[in-house]
C-alpha cells in the first residue's frame, strides 16, 4: 500500500534558538503539514511566522486571523505568514497545525490554513505567500521576541494525493 503521509524532517531543540529552518523540501508531495509543539518567547505568547524560500519582503505575505480568548472574539489582518501560535509559560507552550496546500505548484500563490493556541487562546489563520514559485524551504521565527526554547519541536510532513 502506498504511503501517503510521511515525515519529511523533524527538529527538537536542544537549546534556545531564534530560527528553525527546513531546507531542500522535496517536491514529490501534494501538500505539506507543519506541526509545532513547545514553549516560545515573547512572554504572553505570539505567532510563528514563516518565511518562504528566503523571501523576507513583507509585501509578499498577507494573512487574516480570528481568535477566541475564552471570553471574547477578535480578528484582523496582517502582513505576515503566520502558521501557529505558542506561549512562553513553563510546561505549557501550546500546539499548532499548519497545512500548506499545493505547495509545489508553479502557477498559483501559496496558501496556508492553520490552527493553534494553548489554554488561553484558540486562533485560526488563513495566509498567503504571493509567489508562484514552489516552496523549497521555510524558516520559522516568532513574530517578536527571541524565539523558541529548548524542547520545542517542529515536524514537517508530506501528504501525497496518489
Amino acid at each position, binding site marked *: 500500500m502506498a504511503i501517503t503521509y510521511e515525515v519529511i524532517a523533524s527538529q527538537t531543540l536542544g537549546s534556545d534558538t531564534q530560527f528553525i529552518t527546513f531546507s531542500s523540501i522535496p517536491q514529490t508531495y501534494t501538500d505539506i503539514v507543519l506541526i509545532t509543539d513547545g514553549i516560545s518567547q515573547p512572554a504572553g505568547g505570539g505567532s510563528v511566522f514563516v518565511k518562504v524560500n528566503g523571501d523576507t519582503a513583507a509585501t509578499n505575505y498577507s494573512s487574516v486571523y480570528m481568535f477566541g480568548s475564552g471570553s471574547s472574539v477578535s480578528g484582523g489582518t496582517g502582513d505576515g505568514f503566520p502558521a501557529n501560535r505558542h506561549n512562553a509559560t513553563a510546561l505549557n507552550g501550546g500546539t499548532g*497545525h499548519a497545512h500548506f496546500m499545493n505547495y509545489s505548484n508553479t502557477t498559483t500563490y501559496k496558501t496556508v490554513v492553520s490552527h493553534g493556541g494553548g489554554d488561553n487562546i484558540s486562533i485560526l489563520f488563513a495566509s498567503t505567500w504571493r509567489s508562484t514559485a514552489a516552496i523549497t524551504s521555510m524558516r520559522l521565527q516568532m513574530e517578536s521576541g527571541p524565539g523558541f526554547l529548548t524542547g520545542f519541536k517542529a515536524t514537517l510532513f508530506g501528504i501525497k494525493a496518489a
Partner: protein
Amino acid sequence: MATYQKIASVSVGSGGSAQMVFSSIPATFSDLIIHVSARNTYAGIADDILLDFNGTTTNRTSRYLYGNGASTLSVSVGRGIGLQVSNTAPANLFGVGKIQITQYAGSNYKSISAFTVTENSAATAYAVATSAIWSSTAAITSIEMTPSTGTFMEHSSADLYGIKNS
C-alpha cells in the same frame, strides 16, 4: 513503518455507551490523532464532548472559538473538546471532529487542538476550533471521551491514530 498508524477503534452498539475509551496507549509515537463521529442522548441540538486522560477529570482547560451561522463566540469550557450532534437534531446525523494531541508521551503539559462540527441541515449548527491543555507532565496512557449530558448513541465511533515524527 508508516508515519500515520491506526492504534484502536471504538464503536458504540445498541443501547448506547457512557463513554468511548482508548486504553493501554503505547508510548512509541510522537503525537496522537482522534477522528470522532458522535451523537448523544441530550435533548437538544448539540452538546459538549468531554475529553480526559489517564482516568482523571482534573487539570483540563479549553478555549472554544466557534460560530453558529449568525455570530462568532469564544468560551472557556474546562473539560470540553468540542461539540457533537444531540438528540433533537434530525435523525441519522452525527457531529464529526478531529482531535490532535502533540507530544503526548513527553514531560510538558499536553497541548491539544481540535475541530468539531455539528451541521444538521435543519437547525442551528456549530463549527468549533478548540485549543486545550491537560496540565499534567505524565505520559498519556488512556483517553476517555464522555458526553456532557446523557450517553453516546449507537453508531457513535472514534478512531485513534499514532503519528511518528521520524
